């Protein structure tokens, strides 16, 4: 480990700035002045470039190799989107510019891209309007919960609960709770892997503000009764939310709007090809049906009669500001470019190949691994390490053994309702030979689990570090490099 702060050499400079061309005598008055300099590093440009290049070599991305992290849709990110979004005309555009008088005319290109993207997402999801402002999926969930609350408040509905299936992503209950709702879990039918309709009927009532669903769900199963569920919910004026985390499975095959969902979020960084950035930035636009349009956050982008675009703040029922400006603009722009490149037939091919790839993996591994729900899956399949556990090999060991075989592991121990879960999402961009290589690695691991489990317990051995002690990390709480070490 070579922390950058240890490399600092007093006097080194990484950037040369222009000489000050105005009188440079001013100081901050003493009362307001920082007492001692910020102890940042002192390095040359090449020191910094080598340091971060070294760090990058200790990392693994989609560009490195197969990254089947379930629920995260780690597809290939086209390079052209990066290039175009980085153009000066977008990158140096100040967000307050359109707030000047007639300022929207100064940003017509940017506003047009956002307007078009909103309309494309409407059509893809079957919704009536979109906001692009939420800056991640969880932010979209929270935004929708606030929109639901505003809707119920306006109608005078007294509602306190949000129903959430037990297989859902952790962000669902967390977002509902942060919006001020009490969370009630709804069980999954263990036979079918779909939401238990009977249990739903028992739990739902006048107190239900909303129901949050993911379809296909986190087991990779499409719920064919989803329109019946929205019908049940609407009897109580409960709003139904579609978590679009798994939208990559159903582009052009199913639109949440057609099944009467009231609101939906999509993850541009999953379905629409924008990079995950090592944990962000993402973007989680929210689409709604007509009855919720007035509650969308401001500003909203409108097209004038003269075909110019403007920002409109005049929506008295709006929930207000959820972002400082128009969302993670450059992420939205990349997703827009992605949709223009693929078009209708390209998007349909995305889902067809994503689902095909997942089923290919499922069918190729069903002998070696336990499959809790053996049926056609959607864009991801969930296996269990149950058989391997008999030899003391857990999902974690399988994940780590995959690392030694050159692959990023799938999501493990999720969904929570499957013991020893391995959630595999290959995405559409992976080739047959990549999938075959992964499948043989998985088969090899299954064989080793029987013949030499100890080898798997030691994995990974090919990485810069082996398994790390998470308990020690919590205990020692070393979250910041201390001062006065080699400085």
């Amino acid at each position, binding site marked *: 480990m070579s922390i950058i702060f240890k490399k600092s050499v007093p006097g080194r400079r990484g950037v040369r700035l222009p000489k*000050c061309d105005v009188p440079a005598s001013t100081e901050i008055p003493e009362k307001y002045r920082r007492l001692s300099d*910020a102890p*940042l590093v002192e390095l040359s440009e090449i020191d910094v470039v080598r340091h971060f290049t070294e760090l990058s070599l200790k990392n693994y991305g989609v560009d490195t190799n197969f990254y089947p992290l379930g629920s995260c849709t780690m597809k290939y990110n086209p390079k052209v989107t990066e290039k175009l979004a980085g153009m000066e005309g977008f990158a140096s555009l100040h967000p307050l510019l359109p707030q000047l008088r007639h300022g929207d005319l100064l940003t017509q290109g940017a506003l047009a891209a956002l307007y078009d993207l909103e309309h494309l997402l409407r059509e893809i999801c079957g919704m009536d309007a979109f906001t692009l402002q939420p800056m991640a999926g969880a932010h979209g969930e929270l935004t929708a919960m606030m929109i639901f609350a505003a809707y119920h408040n306006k109608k005078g509905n007294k509602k306190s609960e949000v129903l959430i299936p037990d297989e859902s992503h952790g962000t669902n209950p967390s977002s509902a709770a942060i919006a001020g709702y009490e969370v009630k879990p709804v069980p999954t039918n263990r036979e079918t892997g779909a939401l238990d309709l009977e249990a739903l009927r028992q739990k739902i009532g006048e107190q239900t503000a909303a129901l949050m669903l993911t379809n296909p769900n986190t087991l990779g199963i499409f719920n064919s009764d989803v329109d019946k569920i929205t019908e049940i919910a609407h009897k109580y004026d409960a709003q139904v939310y579609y978590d679009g985390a798994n939208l990559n499975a159903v582009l052009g095959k199913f639109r949440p709007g057609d099944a009467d969902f009231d609101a939906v979020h999509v993850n541009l960084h999953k379905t629409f090809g924008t990079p995950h950035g090592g944990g962000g930035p993402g973007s989680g636009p929210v689409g709604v049906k007509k009855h919720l349009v007035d509650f969308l956050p401001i500003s909203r982008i409108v097209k004038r009669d003269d075909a110019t675009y403007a920002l409109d703040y005049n929506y008295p029922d709006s929930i207000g500001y959820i972002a400082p400006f128009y969302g993670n603009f450059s992420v939205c722009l990349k997703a827009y470019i992605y949709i223009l490149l693929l078009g209708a037939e390209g998007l349909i091919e995305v889902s067809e190949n994503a689902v095909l790839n997942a089923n290919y993996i499922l069918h190729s591994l069903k002998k070696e691994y336990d499959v809790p729900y053996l049926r056609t899956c959607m864009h991801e399949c969930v296996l269990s390490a149950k058989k391997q556990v008999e030899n003391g090999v857990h999902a974690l060991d399988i994940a780590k053994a995959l690392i030694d075989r050159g692959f990023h592991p799938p999501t493990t121990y999720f969904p929570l309702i499957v013991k020893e879960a391995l959630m595999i999402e290959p995405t559409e961009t992976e080739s047959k030979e990549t999938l075959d290589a992964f499948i043989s690695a998985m088969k090899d691991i299954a064989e080793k689990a029987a013949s030499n489990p100890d080898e798997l317990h030691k994995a990974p051995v090919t990485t810069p570090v082996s398994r790390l002690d998470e308990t020690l990390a919590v205990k020692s709480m070393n979250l910041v490099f201390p001062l006065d070490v080699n400085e």
Partner: protein
Amino acid sequence: MSYIANTANEQKEMLKACGLSSIDALFEDIPERLKPKSFNIPHGKSELEVSATIEKMASRNYSHLTSFLGGGFYDHFIPAAIDALASRGEFYTAYTPYQPELSQGTLQSIYEYQTDICRLTGMEVSNASVYDGGTALYEACQMAINATGRNRIIIDGGVNPIYRKMIHTHTLNLSIELCEVAVTHGQGDREKIFEALNKDTAAMIVQNPNFFGVIDDHSDIVNKCHSMGILVIQSTYPVALALIKTPGEIGADIATGDGQSLGIPLSFGGPYLGFMATRKKLARKMPGRISGLTMDTQGREGFVLTLQAREQHIRREKATSNICTNQALCALRANIYLSLLGKEGLKETARLCLNKALYMKERLKAIPNIKVYEDLPVFNEFVIRLPMDAGELAGMMIDRGFAAGFPLGRYYPGMENYLLVAVTEKRTKHDIDLFAETLEDALCQ
């Protein structure tokens, strides 16, 4: 254009392996009645065609104006090495470092970023980022409410009005009482602030420099708040922190801000970088990812995501926050920026901003009919009073090639003639002189 590798033949082979006859068989779970009612999306295009479309859109944006627009978001210099390093595929095509053995690059850079933020703010712990400076402020409110068990938040009127609006939206349905204290003479009004504090108050929010660009020493507010068990949240501007008193030095409990100024392009509002730093004792109340140092099975040092028991994927509805995906790539950029600029470079950048702002202030002051609003110490931004509507003047200056600044009337009724002007190291003396001459000329018309 499609990014699918497999050929039709390969797809057929794979279908056969699955025991299926067609692609349609994969979608049998979707009943006929749930098939899309329409899917009216244009045909796909080539990279060449789409590039031409997008380049044309970019050219319709006025990104060429000489800009004095700030308001919390600034046109700072971005060294080329940042783009070169942050665009390495190993960084930007990875996701949250759930598998630490494969993610030491991301995890170490988060740890270094956390260290940078603490060294800049004078605080003890930092998280790996939240969406933006406004979200950071709202999350800080939640931390204070959790830590104190109280539900009243006092906000100084000098806090960015957009952030105040965001806090308002986020707390609408929660039993949280928000109380805003108007700024009277350019700085936080001590008398009114102290009057607003009471035993139900969880936190006091201040900003330094405030929205008018004025710098302040909030130590007295911190002392008063602490004597009443109230936490102080200070939103701040990281480049200014090279020179001005830090949240740590005044004794603030939580420091927040937007890290856009640290090597992140303006990009029409995002992605930006919400930073949050606090005291060790509040670390477990902090939202978001945190990277920590530990050991591997062979005694080697390495990094992991830590204190995860706070987070939504473990705690679900009991988590401290719902945040999952954050602004990791922007935090990496900030880490690279601060490493390149370093101790002296950041100070020099801040000095350039300060000196140019003061030069410009004097230059504009000399123009008849222009007054500087409450002539108080500033960093790189200040307010002038014009003899006319500031919005109208800004419009006239656009025609002359300048983004003159931000007219305050939009967020501060009664201040229609006031313009907020920002300067960074990128503006030259020539830019400033030309601006002053043009402004004087425009006012004469």
